[in-house]
Structures are given as structure tokens and as C-alpha cells.
């Protein structure tokens, strides 16, 4: 610690730190080492296994073939358009809910979260039912006979899938935009729209960019949506999966995965560069102004935002409705007679349901903790290996889930570890940790570094700064991160599909399996039960948290 180099702009109170660090050497250093070790074992090692799997021939095969060029161009197009639209929708939604005083905003705020809970197959299947060639919206409501399979369908599906992420990040940021600046602008006579565009928006640039880059990487690695709705429009992430499951060619799949990671790493470096410059501007906590009562928006904005939110919410609701209705129908869309037979089957799947909930819960806990610690080490300390940690924690977001699952299974074979549940927990933790990392670092970056300095000059050591200042101030962000990890963990398919074993079946995989076998009624009812369970647990959790907070206060 003493000989650690104090570079970077982290702190202005080096003397105090040096004086204290002597006796608190061990615990923080231990924690730091533990995090580095965990990240190395769970991220770097499996990826190394991916790197050494393909033979030279696989590389030559992939690079000498012209087939992949189209896929690469398609991927680029997909990435740019889906990201832009998702962020736009997510930001507008967040703005409408947080800043514009539209009616039912509390209910609207619930929908993106609800959507995050959708098990992946629900999205795909309900897309077919709603927007397919026989879709309820396209055919029954609009009377169209169109095929959305291909680029347009992919765009709709991905925007619906990823805008909640943008919403979550943007709403965190919007909540923390200092009202004093908006008030000042208003005092000078600026209109609400002008404030939104020239004050609020630039202040959120950090969050928006963060969301955009995160979504861009997620879009790159998304294979569920393109698989189902992209039709003849081929993208790289699907090719990775296809090579693996259709051709049983782990080598080529790994090569394509490696190609896919490169742009993600570039995006990631770009973001880091950009964020460094912006960070200081956005530190706002620690200089709070009491908000003035909001001025009413102009009627036009109000109406447009309301319709916008209602439209998106209705789409999300329609997806759920199709699943709910499907689980009570004898034969989806064909024999609409009411039945309970699918639900009677559910008790057979109790092991699957318990596993899904348990694993996702543990992973969400591990993911949130690991992400918070990593953010702390990277942004608030001068300990070594910052860059390494920063990159390792975020890189899984750039990998298609199935490739990372393959990486884990390769490494467990390599080490002769036969612990399917451990592998599943690691896969879930690692797959969704990048999001936790993003959201927590966004929250941390808004907590002024002067607060750290202040508490440290009052005698707190680094760990105390973390536990008594940073963590309590970022409770909201950590809770969002936990919810996200948990919900995605419950619903994930791609990252665990290669890891489930005889005693560790998962409900999400079972749903996919049932759907794939044409058992849509059962698949839908299992999805309904799983989603209800997930909701109830979260509800219970938030009630307990509320009671706990009241007691504390």
C-alpha cells in the first residue's frame, strides 16, 4: 500500500490516507486480492479456454470464407439501429416518468421492470403471436398480410428487449440531475422543452452514453431475438450459436466469438475514454438542493409523452397477455377451449422452479457484491490492477451467453470439476455482472469525491468510506442491480444451456424445451408460474426492505 503509486485524480488527501493505511493494510488488501482472484478464475480462465480451443484450421476456414462478411455488415447495421432506437425509447420513457408529470407515471414506471422479467422465449413466441404473419396486431387488428421477419422484426424485438436497460440507467441519472440547474434555467424564463433539451439532456449525457454502449454490446451478443425473428438476415451472434449446435464445431464457434468480442472491446475503450472526461461534471450528491414543485408541461408534450408510454406499456402487456391466455388454452391459437390441464402439470417441475430461483438469487447477490467492490476498487482507490479489473468485469457483456457457457464447460472439463450448480451460479453471476457494474459505477460517479475526502479527513479508512458513505448513498442503484441480476438469472437460457445437468434442471431451459417440442400450453403455464414466483419474491423483498428501513429510521 505504501509503495502504491498515487496517480490518477482519485484523491486530494494523500497524507491522511498514507497515515491510516498502515494498520488497515490487511482487510482491504485481502478483499482486493479476493476480487481479483474471483474475476480471474470466473472470467479470464474460461475465456482463455475459448482462445486455445480452436485449431489453426478453424481460423483459416472462417477468414477465407466470404460468407461471414455479410453477417458482419448485418451485425453492424443491427447494432447501430437497435442501440439508437432502444436508447431513444428508454430515455423518453424515463423522462416521461421522472420529469414530466404525466398521469399514472407510477404504473408506467413498473412496465420496463416487468418487461425485464420476461423469460426470453416469451419475447420470441409472443412476437410471433402478435406481429407474425398471422399475428394478432398485424393481421387481426390491422388486417395486414405482411412478413416482419428480417431486419424490421429484429429491430422491433430488440428495441422492446433492450429499452428497459436504457430506461433503468437513464432514470437513475435523471433522478439525480440537480434540480438547482433546472430551476435556474426556469427562473431565467426557459420553457420546459428548452430545459429538457439544453439542461437536462446534456446533464444526462453520461448516463445515456453509458446506456448506449452497454446496449450496443448487448445487441452484438444477443442471439435469442435474431434467432427467432431475423429470418434471412444473418448476424454473427447467431452464427456462433449455429456453429455450435448445428454443426457441433466448437472451434469455429470460438473463432466467431473472438471476432465478435473485438468491436465490443473497442466500444468499451471508447466509453472509458469518454467517461473519464465527463466524470467530474456529474458529481452531484453532496450538494443537494430542495426541489421546487414541478411546473406543468405544455399540453402537447404531456399528451405525446403519455401516448408514448401507454403504447409501449400496452405492447409489454400484450406480450404477457398472450402468454397468460396461452397457458389456459387447450391448443394455442387453434383450440381456444379453456383448460387447467397445463397448470396441473406444474408440480412436476418443482425442482426446476426451486433451482432457478435459488441459483438466480445467489448469483444476483454475488454479482451485485462483486460489481460494487470492483467499482469501488477501480474508481475510488489507487490499488494496482485497476484496468485489468475494469476490463474483466465488463467483458462478459460482449460475449454471447452461449459462448461464455461453453467457455465455462470447457474449463470445468479441463479442471475435472463436476459441479454443475457451481458452474450455473458462476455463469449467471458473470453474465449479468457487467450491468451491475455499469449501474453502480454510474451511481458512484455521481457521488462527489469530496465526500470521500471529507470522511477520510474525519478519520475514516477506505473501507469505512465504502461502507458508511458510498454504499448507503448508492442503495437504490444496488437494489436495481440486484433486481436486474435476479430477474435475468431466472430467465436466462443461453448462458446456462450447456451447464445444466441431471440434478440441476432449470425452469427457463425447461420452458425452451417445451416450446421447442410444440408444448406451448405447458411452456406458457410454466412461464406464467415462474414469472409470478419471481414477482412475488421481489415484492416480498421490497416489503421487507421497507419495514426494515422504517425500523432503522
Amino acid at each position, binding site marked *: 500500500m505504501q509503495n502504491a503509486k498515487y496517480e490518477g485524480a482519485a484523491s486530494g488527501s494523500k497524507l491522511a490516507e498514507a497515515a491510516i493505511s498502515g494498520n488497515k493494510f490487511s482487510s482491504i488488501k485481502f478483499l482486493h486480492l479476493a476480487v481479483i482472484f474471483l474475476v480471474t478464475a470466473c472470467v479470464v480462465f474460461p475465456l482463455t479456454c475459448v482462445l486455445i480451443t480452436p485449431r489453426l484450421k478453424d481460423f483459416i476456414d472462417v477468414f477465407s470464407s466470404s460468407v461471414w462478411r455479410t453477417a458482419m455488415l448485418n451485425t453492424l447495421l443491427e447494432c447501430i439501429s437497435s442501440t439508437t432506437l432502444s436508447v431513444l425509447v428508454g430515455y423518453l420513457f424515463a423522462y416521461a416518468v421522472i420529469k414530466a408529470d404525466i398521469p399514472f407515471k407510477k404504473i408506467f414506471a413498473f412496465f420496463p421492470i416487468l418487461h425485464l422479467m420476461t423469460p426470453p422465449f416469451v419475447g420470441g413466441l409472443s412476437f410471433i403471436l402478435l406481429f407474425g404473419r398471422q399475428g394478432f396486431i398485424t393481421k387481426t387488428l390491422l388486417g395486414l398480410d405482411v412478413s416482419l421477419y428480417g431486419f424490421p422484426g429484429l429491430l422491433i424485438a430488440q428495441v422492446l428487449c433492450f429499452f428497459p436497460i436504457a430506461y433503468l440507467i437513464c432514470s437513475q441519472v435523471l433522478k439525480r440531475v440537480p434540480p438547482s440547474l433546472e430551476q435556474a434555467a426556469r427562473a431565467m424564463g426557459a420553457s420546459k422543452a428548452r430545459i429538457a433539451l439544453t439542461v437536462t439532456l446534456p446533464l444526462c449525457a453520461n448516463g445515456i452514453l453509458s446506456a448506449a454502449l452497454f446496449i450496443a454490446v448487448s445487441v452484438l451478443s444477443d442471439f435469442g431475438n435474431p434467432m427467432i425473428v431475423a429470418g434471412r438476415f444473418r448476424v454473427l451472434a447467431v452464427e456462433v450459436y449455429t456453429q455450435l449446435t448445428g454443426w457441433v464445431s466448437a472451434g469455429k464457434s470460438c473463432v466467431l466469438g473472438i471476432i465478435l468480442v473485438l468491436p465490443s472491446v473497442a466500444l468499451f475503450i471508447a466509453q472509458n475514454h469518454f467517461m473519464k472526461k465527463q466524470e467530474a461534471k456529474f458529481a452531484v450528491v453532496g450538494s443537494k438542493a430542495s426541489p421546487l414543485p414541478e411546473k406543468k408541461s405544455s399540453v402537447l408534450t404531456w399528451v405525446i409523452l403519455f401516448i408514448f408510454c401507454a403504447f409501449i406499456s400496452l405492447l409489454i402487456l400484450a406480450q404477457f397477455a398472450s402468454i397468460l391466455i396461452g397457458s389456459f388454452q387447450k391448443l394455442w391459437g387453434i383450440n381456444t377451449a379453456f383448460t387447467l390441464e397445463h397448470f396441473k402439470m406444474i408440480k412436476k417441475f418443482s425442482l426446476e422452479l426451486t433451482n432457478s430461483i435459488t441459483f438466480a438469487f445467489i448469483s444476483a447477490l*454475488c454479482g451485485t457484491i462483486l460489481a460494487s467492490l470492483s467499482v469501488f476498487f477501480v474508481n475510488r482507490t489507487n490499488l494496482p490492477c485497476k484496468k485489468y479489473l475494469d476490463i474483466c468485469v465488463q467483458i462478459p457483456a460482449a460475449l454471447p451467453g452461449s459462448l461464455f457457457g461453453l467457455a465455462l464447460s470447457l474449463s470445468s472439463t479441463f479442471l475435472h470439476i463436476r459441479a454443475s450448480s457451481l458452474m450455473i451460479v458462476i455463469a449467471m453471476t458473470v453474465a449479468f455482472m457487467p450491468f451491475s457494474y455499469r449501474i453502480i459505477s454510474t451511481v458512484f460517479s455521481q457521488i462527489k469525491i469530496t465526500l470521500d475526502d471529507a470522511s477520510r479527513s474525519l478519520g475514516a479508512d477506505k473501507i469505512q468510506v465504502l461502507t458508511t458513505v458510498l454504499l448507503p448513498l448508492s442503495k437504490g442503484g444496488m437494489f436495481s442491480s440486484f433486481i436486474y441480476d435476479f430477474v435475468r438469472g431466472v430467465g436466462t437460457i443461453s448462458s446456462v444451456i450447456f451447464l445444466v*445437468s441431471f440434478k440441476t434442471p432449470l425452469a427457463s431451459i425447461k420452458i425452451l424445451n417445451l416450446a421447442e417440442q410444440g408444448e406451448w400450453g405447458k411452456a406458457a403455464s410454466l412461464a406464467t408460474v415462474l414469472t409470478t414466483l419471481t414477482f412475488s419474491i421481489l415484492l416480498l423483498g421490497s416489503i421487507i426492505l421497507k419495514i426494515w428501513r422504517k425500523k432503522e429510521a
Partner: protein
Amino acid sequence: MKKTIILITAALFASLALAGCQKKNTQELRVYSIIHDEETEALTKLFTEKTGIPVSYLRATTGELVNRVITEKNDPLADVLLGGASSYHIQADKEGALESYASPLAKNLPSYAVAQDNTWTGFCVLTLGIGINEARYAEKFPGLKIPASWDDLTNPAFKGEIVLTNPSASSTGYLFVQNQLQRLGKEKGWDYLLALTKNVGQFPDSGSAPAKLLGTGEYAIGVSYLHALAKYNAQGFNVRPIAPPKSVGDVDCVSIMKNTKNLAAAKKFVDFILSVEAQELMSQFTFTTPVNPQAKAVKGSIPIADIDLINYDVQKASSEKAEVLDKWVKSVK
């Protein structure tokens, strides 16, 4: 902070404890199953009743399980791989993952259903056919005769209404391509394929997708395994299965893992799968045609007499796969 550390440790221990729970029970037979979930359940239950050997199974898609079989070949988790077209078992065999076992019941089987080195044995016949969603067809092509042969599908009227599995992603799709190339010869075969693909609206990656898309009325015409179409038909979907002349067949296979510690039980399982009782049970679920000549296929499945097969050359299909698919990718779309 202490809380956090305690939480981390607790979480890790919890997951480790869970992991510890799944010690391998050597008494139990472990099956990787590619066939239908309910079917696997019924079969394994019957097997346990008959032999007293407990079974646990894991059901997943072909590529996934074959992949596992290959990566785990030195220390297999499963004892038996149940299901999957012969090409996949050949692939696993080439990697040295399969054990040879000539079941006494395999003597009665047609020669195409048994591997030369006895590593895999077919247990039901799969044949390609044409599926029609009658409602959509009647609406789109009123008065047009329903296609009865492969050649009927190239009618330009069908543009955008045919769904065909992507041959570079699925063995079903590739089987279809080889069907045409071997039926018509190389040159005419390609002419046919290029004419047909102009009519194709979508190339899904999964072999089971066309039947599903027909069932929901997304397309009027599709190419799929006949038994899948027959099953959808029996379930109440408006899907009519058609067995065109000069089709090809493949077999769903069962095989034993090379380094299994449960060889005796695994052999019993293979014998069981080929038995008349198991074969008839299977047919009830999947509408496939049993490979054992003594077993009767379920009502509603396509009788073997209605199926006209060409003499399909598996070796040729597998040796020219890369070349054919390369040409496919370059000339289609």
C-alpha cells in the same frame, strides 16, 4: 464491510454445498435424451419397471448434447445418448466417444439402421415430407392442386409461402438438400434447389421449426420430417402431411458412451429401446415408424407402405458436406 464479507462467504458456501449435493450415483443409469420429453419420461419409467434400474435423464437439443458427449468423452457424465440422426452419431463416433455394442435385437433391423462398427443403432425411421396448412393454402391458392411431389414445389405461384430449414444450420435441412442432389443428380439437383429457394420465405435454423410455423398458419407450405407433421395433425393443427415420391429416410439412433462406468445397464437400455414394447410406446408419442419390424406403428402415423425412398448414400452426403454448403451459401439469397 464485515456483513459484506460474511454475505460473500455465505453465498459461496451455499453454492458449493449445492454443488456437493450432486455426487454421482453409479447405480443409476444416466441418459442424454434428444427425443421428446414426455416420451423419454414414459420410456425410462417403463425401463425401470422392467429392470429395476433407476434412470435419470437430461433432455436437450441434438447439437448441444452431441457437443457434450464429445467434450466429455474421457469421463462421460451420461451413459447413453438417446436420439439424434445417424450423422450426429457418426460424428461422435469419429471423435471416439462411442462404445460398440451389437444388441441381439439389432439382427432383425434393416442394414441402414445399424452402424458397421455397431457404435450406434437406429430405433425409428425418419422420412422427409411436405406439410400443407390447409386453411392458409385454400385462402392463398384457391383452386390450385395441393403439391404431391418435390417438383410441384417450384411453382412460381408459391413465392414467399414455403418454409425450409437452413441446411447450413440443421441436419434436417441438409438431408433435404442431399435428397434433391441424389434424386436428380448434381446439375439438375442444383437447378431444382435454386428454383425452389426463390419461393422460400424463411430459412429457420431448427429442423422442427417448419412444422411449427405451418401449425400456426404462418406459411402455407413447409418441408419437414413426416412424423412431426403427422403429430401436429393428430394434435389438432390444420396441417396435412404429404409423402412425396423419391424421398429420403434417416434413423434416430441410440448409442453407449465409450468410458461409461455403467456398461451392463447401458446395454440393457439399448436392448429395451429396440424391444417391441418400447418401440410401440415411442410411436404413440412421436408418430414415427418403428424400426423393429414386429412393432406396430400408431394410428395416424404415415404407414411405411406410403413412403417411397431413394437409395440414399450417407457416406457421399457426409463427405461432400462442406463443398455443397459452400455452394449453397454462395448461390442462395
